[in-house]
């Protein structure tokens, strides 16, 4: 049973000040995580570190939302337990799926699948046809020109 601080209420009441304060913290954390992601970790492997930091910050933010905004701090522990259990099941699901797909990665036939390769080849063919006939039709012709100009263009950039 929630302990009611204010008389006559059926649930716990969180003061407005606290809500605003928590929101400010959440916004600050958002800004922080964006800033970190833009940092250039010259010495650190940026990918790894960034993932850890971003997910860590997100977890902190989520915990704050759950505890304060969603009143979990004052609710029955069984609810937290059940909610955490659902997160746990997701993690379990993900970890088994990861274990399996990792082990099977080498067996995957490399390259584009037939369907996608056919699409690409078709686009290729049409691009070449357009180029050969000198037809000027929007993107295709533009592309054809582009491919030809590419070296010159790069040279010009210098």
């Amino acid at each position, binding site marked *: 049973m929630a302990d009611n601080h204010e008389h006559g209420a059926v649930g716990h009441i969180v003061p407005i000040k606290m809500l605003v304060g928590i929101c400010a913290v959440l916004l600050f954390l958002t800004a922080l995580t964006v800033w970190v992601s833009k940092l250039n970790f010259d010495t650190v492997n940026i990918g790894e570190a960034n993932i850890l930091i971003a997910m860590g910050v997100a977890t902190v933010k989520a915990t704050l939302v759950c505890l304060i905004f969603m009143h979990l701090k004052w609710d029955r522990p*069984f609810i937290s337990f059940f909610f955490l*259990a*659902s997160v746990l*099941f997701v993690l*379990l*699901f993900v970890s*088994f*799926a990861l*274990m*399996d*797909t*990792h*082990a*099977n990665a080498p*067996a995957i036939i490399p390259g584009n*699948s*037939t*369907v*996608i390769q056919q699409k690409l080849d078709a686009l290729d063919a049409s691009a070449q046809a357009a180029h050969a006939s000198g037809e000027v039709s929007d993107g295709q012709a533009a592309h054809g020109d582009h491919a030809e100009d590419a070296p010159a263009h790069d040279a010009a950039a210098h």
Partner: protein
Amino acid sequence: MSTTDTPNMTGPAPVPDNYLTYSRGIWSWLFTLDHKRIGLMYLMSVLGSFFIGGIMALLVRTQLLVPEGLIMDQDQYNQVFTLHGAIMVFLVIIPSVPAALGNFVLPIMLGAKDVAFPRLNLFSYWLWMTGALMFVLALFTGGLDTGWTFYTPYSIDTGSAMGGVIPALTGAFVLGFSSIFTGMNFIVTIHRLRPPGMTWFRMPLFLWAIYGTAIIQVLATPVLGITLALLVVERAFGIGIFNPALGGDPVLYQHFFWFYSHPAVYIMILPGMGIISDLIAVHSHRHIFGYSFIAWSSISIAIFSFLVWGHHMFTSGQSELVSVVFSLITFSVAIPSAVKVFNWLATMYKGTISWNTPMLYGMGFIFIFTIGGLTGLHLGTLGTDIHLHDTYFVVAHFHYVMMGSALIAFIGGIHHWWPKMTGRMYNENWGRIAFSLVFIGFNLTFFSQFMLGSQGMPRRYGTYPADAGFQFYHVLSTAGSYILAIGFFITAGYLIQSLLGGRRAPSNPWGGRSLEWQCTSPPPHDNFSEAPAVGDCYDFSVLRWDENEQGYVWRDDVAHPGSEDVS
């Protein structure tokens, strides 16, 4: 305090104000918020679906009488076995015990006036109906031939699988949410609506089983929801999550699917085990043996059920390590099931066993579930599963568990609570005859499939090689299925007959102690006008048979609960 007991003594006379007569007219049923009426509507809908699914089963069995197939071409056969599976799983077994019997019995057993969210309950029912209609729609939009598992890429290949896939997927999605809402309702009801005195460990074991089931329904079904939703999008727009042609992974689909569908197996069997726990105790008139072991085994089965999905995928291209881990955990789930069987047997020991129809179904359940459970060992063992996977051995195994156990328990439960639900007694002799036919028919149908499977007959085959020696077992199996069908038709016959001209049921025809036997038969609209007095629901020594009542009444020399042991 226990005022509900007094009106029970009026004997088998019509109960003037019960939930059936409380209000009249079709709308009072279709939009009722009464859990008992919703339960009854579920029961009728589920039995209707069971009839259709059963007809499909008979068609399948008839087809396989001869190697080249007797009555259908390949496309028809594929549709029939797919619909048989999909209907039986999604429309029959999953809602059978929790939604139909659970809805009716759970609040009364608990001593509550209703489930926690009656409107949500009605909404679940209508979701179920919507889902069922989507399956019908699937039939008219090109049929469905993917198998009930919707394995990719076959199911998303618009060139091969039939046009009814999207309606069927949507239907299963909707049915999933119906199941989720039922589960939520039950969990909250059990947590929040227990009357004073109904402590956790005084609950009948059926409630523990339903509680475990509800946890699985809430935690597993959403994953099925997202899986089916992705499948719909995949089929409609080709997004490439499960489609290898677009870089997707069909084995990942199987992980998604079985993450729900293995726990779903326990959604099917756990409530059945709960029914049997109560059936055995009540009809043996002996205290259930090892209450807490059975209760905890229900919860541990519910939790373990989430950790074993990979045993459906030993040959699917799943990595060796994952297969080994899943096999190990799979064995751990066998233990609680075995514990339950031993406890049921111990309950019968030195009991006073009445050989009436529900008890026969209870004993039939133990026999069949033992076979179903033990053959699970062959399939959980990696080395033998490779040979047995996707053969009739698996078909036989899951029919022993799903049909022979879950559905037999459901039918046993229907017989057990029939007097309570309808206020009428059915004919016991016909009940025993029908049970014998069902029991013999079932074992004939499905035991022969074990040999078929281990001899190498693959499943989902509409024809089979004539020289492989399969036909003998197929003929046996088909003959068994006909006997089984006759048994079910007789059951339907005498149950319907009982509605028209059956003897009026007393409050407590079997000698049960749980709270539903304290209400009149059928129960009043509000179940209990006051919170009922709760005692030990497995202590049958306080009851005696009353000849006038034709049922069990409280012994005159024992004090009523409420005066002595309400905590």
